[in-house]
């Protein structure tokens, strides 16, 4: 009868979709194997989170509120999540593999001395847990088991499908145990990036450009198609290293790993390090003028042609279809 806790992340009041994906999966597991699904919320106000958490299957939402949780702080938030685990003893805690979650999960796990498993894409319960996660940037998967009573598991955004399954989701507060805890690293400010409205790692569609775009002045071709698709704009390392776009756009073994529903690679040859970061995308499209480019080996659809001719027409047509 495992009880699964799901960390409900927000950034300045905006709740993260990955939380609803994790709750939906936790609900499916609880319906099959028993146990409860709990939301865990740290923030100034738990009400909006609780309403949505209930909709996606949370039996309860445990919340610690207050100014300490207005901005992310590894020490304070890690202490609070650990305090929750100590008090409520969930069997599994799911934390989204976001910038915040990747920092919080090992921090809380180290405080508890429990297992921490990063960036998982599959959860199996069969008396015990088996956690599936990609390693070597997706060239291979590992099925991991753990020996501690509790494990904190990072979940990759879009690994699970969001579903609705209304439950009470009543809020219960818990003591985050912050008395006497001082943070020696403080977030002083948050600056929004100027480019890229959709975040790469969370996007359902990604359009990436490579050296085939010839120069930085042509990256808007990628951005325009991305915009028409409601997608995030990505890049190969070649054009990041050339300084055409910021590193935050890089997809691959030493950039972001993405697994969107649709990945469109434009003027990208498909080097092994690039494939590592995107080959688990559900549908892959390649647009490349070289029919022998390795990207076609992983693509589901391809156009052998000049991206300068294809992309504007594709952008127009997508705009028409999506209205």
């Amino acid at each position, binding site marked *: 009868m495992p009880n699964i806790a799901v960390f409900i992340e927000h950034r300045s009041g905006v709740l993260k979709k990955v939380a609803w994906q994790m709750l939906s999966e936790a609900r499916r597991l609880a319906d099959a194997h028993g146990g409860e699904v709990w939301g865990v919320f740290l923030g100034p106000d738990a009400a909006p989170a609780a309403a949505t958490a209930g909709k996606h299957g949370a039996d309860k939402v445990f919340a610690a509120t207050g100014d300490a949780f207005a901005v992310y702080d590894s020490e304070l938030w890690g202490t609070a999540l650990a305090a929750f685990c100590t008090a409520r003893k969930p069997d599994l805690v799911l934390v989204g593999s976001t*910038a915040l979650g990747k920092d919080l999960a090992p921090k809380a796990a180290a405080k508890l001395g429990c297992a921490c498993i990063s960036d998982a894409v599959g959860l199996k319960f069969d008396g015990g847990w088996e956690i599936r996660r990609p390693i070597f940037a997706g060239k291979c998967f590992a099925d991991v088991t753990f020996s501690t009573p509790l494990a904190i598991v990072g979940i990759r955004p879009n690994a699970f499908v969001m579903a609705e399954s209304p439950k009470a989701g009543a809020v219960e507060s818990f003591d985050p145990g912050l008395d006497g805890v001082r943070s020696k690293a403080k977030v002083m400010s948050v600056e929004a990036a100027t480019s890229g409205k959709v975040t790469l790692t969370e996007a359902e*569609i990604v359009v990436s450009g490579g050296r085939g775009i010839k120069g930085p002045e042509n990256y808007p071709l990628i951005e325009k198609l991305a915009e028409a698709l409601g997608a995030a704009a990505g890049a190969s390392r070649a054009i990041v290293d050339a300084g055409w776009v910021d590193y935050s756009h890089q997809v691959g073994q030493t950039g972001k790993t993405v697994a969107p529903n649709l990945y469109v690679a434009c003027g990208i040859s498909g080097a092994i390090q690039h494939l590592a970061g995107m080959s688990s995308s559900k549908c892959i*499209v390649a647009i490349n003028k070289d029919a022998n480019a390795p990207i076609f080996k992983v693509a589901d659809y391809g156009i052998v042609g000049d991206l300068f001719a294809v992309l504007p027409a594709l952008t127009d047509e997508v705009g028409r279809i999506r209205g």
Partner: protein
Amino acid sequence: MKIAVCVKQVPDSETRINLAAPAPELDQSGFTRVLNPYDAYAVEQAVRIKESREGVEVTAITVGPQTVKETLKKDCLAVGCDKAVIVDDPALAKADHAAIATVLAAVLGREPYDLVLFGLKAIDGDAGQVGILVAQKLGLPHVSTITKLELGEGSLKAEREIEGGKEIVEASLPCVLTCQKGLNEPRLPSLPNIMKAGMKPIETVTCRDLGIEAPANLVTVKLYSPPPARGACKLVEAEDPAAAARELARLLSEEAKVI
């Protein structure tokens, strides 16, 4: 000032994994091993700090077999680290992240360091945990995924990448940092410096030398599986690129149902 850089030797990013079916072990015997690319940013940052002020000593630390020595010499000592420590213990051959962190914390606990630098993640296991685990074990603050660093007296200011922007973080020293691409451009070692690196001290220790037992693993990999196979690519052919684009959009919308 003392700086420690924790580095791992990993299979080259070119590595292909030929796994036909699920298997309990991953045969890594043919892999070419290199310095973890993210650790190169940590090494470079440490060396830049050393070059910018007086009296800085940089120690590279790794847990791994003696085969890491060449990587340590070429990519750490030859680019400016002063000395290195290898924890080489057969009991750690299958150590998980928590165990590696315990061992590193024991090494780092032998003398006080003002800064401890890590890579953001190792590109074999893709975990991104060890730096943060070590910070907690040592009771130090950490800033993860940094892309910019300004070192003050007794404190630092760092930028870290988050979705759609960055956070500016201030922390007191001593502090743990995990380094991301964008922080700097790692230099390449020169041939004379590679020769000279042979003279720099490399200390090899075991768990017993550190006064600890080999830590137990918390996680175990039961099975390694290949990624699901992909079908063949459907090439869209048409009289001109614009027509091909229209047909592609139709297929994505009606057949693949992804737009």
